[in-house]
């Protein structure tokens, strides 16, 4: 039942290698398409009738630089954007919000558009690293079309700084083949089975927010806790689990696919992609809770191609374009206009749109969770232990 996408033709490989060397594709993309990483975004093939409306008057320059996450866009949309505007989309892929923040704090990133997660935006505003958005330059933005839960973090003190891209949850992916066909249902089970039947087969993220958050959930504490005693418990658990782990990585799709790993902390879009290709891999939300999040489009202060930045965000907010994005990355949209354009099967998909009672215990990450120095240091101690 496993669809084998581990190989590509020699000729295609050489082509991809060539473009990799020229720097025109990202490392992760290279891994994904060559099967070295084997993580094609395959929620569905292109749906007919979804052509973006060509729209931009005026010259916006020849390029726009986007800082975003892996497996997060439909490359065809970027091609269409280049065709419509003449601006080439240069994509930089990141592993964590901390890394994005660190690069912006160090200054001069050259980015025009980036994709911050809900809990980071107030920090960017405090640090003066984000540009307030002028909605008159975003005709495709309709504030009323978005579910407020996934849009409210974009405004700080009444000013709009970021517009919603998509939301998602952080749960776990489990290969049920190795557990008598049964999934697991809680973070308690996750960390217990990782030290027992799944020893050497489980992965946690290389990301303090989700890894520490899940360990806190194990004890029934809040995902966002910065309480020292609770963090000490989480650290004890993580250090105890560490020798049993297969890896500490946020690039977990390849090892889940090739069978080296059986269990991982997982973002819902990755869960959807894995489940589509290998139905024995289930995506589940922890019973104790976990994270619900929302990613946004924003413009960093001093973006070198400001007009192109607005043009790209506006383009990606076009419901037709956005629907294609959703089909590619497998994360749910907060935009009602885009939702309408999705195929019925996707609208009712339990991974994209989980039942309300499963969503209720989930928490949005807090700004303090991201910037708390104790959590950062705990993660570093765990990794170097």
């Amino acid at each position, binding site marked *: 039942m496993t669809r084998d996408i581990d190989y590509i033709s020699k000729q295609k490989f050489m082509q991809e290698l060539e473009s990799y060397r020229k720097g025109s594709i990202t490392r992760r993309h290279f891994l994904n398409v060559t099967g070295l990483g084997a993580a094609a975004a395959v929620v569905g093939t292109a749906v007919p009738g979804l052509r973006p409306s060509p729209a931009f008057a005026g010259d916006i320059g020849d390029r726009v630089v986007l800082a975003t996450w892996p497996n997060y866009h439909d490359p065809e949309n970027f091609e269409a954007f280049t065709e419509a505007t003449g601006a080439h989309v240069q994509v930089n892929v990141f592993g964590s919000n901390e890394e994005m923040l*660190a690069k912006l704090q160090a200054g001069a990133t050259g980015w025009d558009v980036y994709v911050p997660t809900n809990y980071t935006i107030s920090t960017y505003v405090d640090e003066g690293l984000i540009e307030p958005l002028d909605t008159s330059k975003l005709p495709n933005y309709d504030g009323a079309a978005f579910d407020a839960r996934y849009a409210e973090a974009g405004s700080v003190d009444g000013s709009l700084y970021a517009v919603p891209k998509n939301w998602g949850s952080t749960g776990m992916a489990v290969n049920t083949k190795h557990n008598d066909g049964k999934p697991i249902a809680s973070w308690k089970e996750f960390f217990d089975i990782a030290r027992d039947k799944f020893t050497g087969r489980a992965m946690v993220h290389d990301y303090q927010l989700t890894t520490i958050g899940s360990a806190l959930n194990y004890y029934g504490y809040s995902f966002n806790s910065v309480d020292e005693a609770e963090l000490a418990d989480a650290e004890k658990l993580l250090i105890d689990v560490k020798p049993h782990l297969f890896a500490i990585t946020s690039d977990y799709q390849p090892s889940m696919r*090739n069978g080296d790993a059986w269990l991982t902390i997982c973002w819902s879009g990755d869960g959807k992609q894995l489940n589509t290709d290998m139905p024995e891999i289930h995506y589940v939300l922890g019973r104790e809770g976990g994270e619900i999040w929302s990613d946004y489009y924003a413009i960093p202060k001093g973006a070198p191609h400001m007009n192109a930045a607005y043009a790209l965000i506006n383009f990606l907010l076009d419901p037709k374009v956005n629907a294609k994005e959703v089909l590619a990355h497998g994360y749910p949209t907060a935009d009602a206009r885009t939702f309408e354009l999705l195929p019925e099967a996707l609208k009712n998909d339990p991974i994209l749109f989980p039942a309300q009672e499963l969503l209720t215990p989930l928490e949005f990450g807090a700004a303090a969770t991201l910037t708390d*120095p104790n959590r950062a240091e705990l993660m*570093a101690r765990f990794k170097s232990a």
Partner: protein
Amino acid sequence: MTARTRNWLLLAPAGAWFLVMLIIPLTVVFIFSFGERAPAGGVVPAFTFEQYANLPARWAAFKNTMTLAPIGTLSALLIAYPLAYYLAVKSSPKWKTILLVLVIVPFWTSILIRSYAWIFLLGGRGIPALLDWVGIEGVRLINTPFAVLIGIIYGYLPLMVFPIFVSLDKLDKRLLEASSDLGAKPWRTFLQITLPLSIPGIATGCMLVFILLMGEYLIPALLGGGKVFFVGNALVDLFLQSRNWAYGSAVAVTLVVVMLIAVTVYMRLITRLGASREDVSIM
């Protein structure tokens, strides 16, 4: 233009480079290391030894580096020496060129891509599957210190082969004949003539590999699965994840100091073995 002015002018580009790219950044790092972490990350100036007092929290990273760097260097030496010896002494001139090119060929591809290839060789469907097939079951390679060691030896081998090859290639072959004519057995000739004369190559190769290994980041990150942690990986985390520049600077300064000490000890050792300081051509 006097000779003196000309000399200064010719040295100016390298001197400026050295100042801007090495001295100034190192000074900045040194100053940062006495600072404190800013609330949202970064550094605020201060004068505190708090960051240095906190160093034991990265003990495991230093321990991993200080174990795997020497082991990696020694393993590379043991594998590279016979290869360099064969290339320089035993192979025919025609083959020598071809074999040398084969040693260089891997450098045409980025170490990043070559290390990725190892992920698949060492992963469950690679070498372990082969071992499984011949009856050795349950072998795990990827994400272990051993996988990192393999990656290190693979990546750094050519850097060890070349200096040794050069010193052996320069070796006057008549010395070997003389030794044999005077009745020495091959092993004695090797130990008394070849090996001592190749010490400069060994010294240079080990130094090159060891210094680069102390700062290694990529191979443990790729083949260690985030579980085999070098100081280089700790530094990346401190600057890009926890954004504790002050502490990161203290760790960096410590790494530089540890390296200087290791290199000094190493030079002493090499001199005692009979090489002169000038023999280590990168120093």
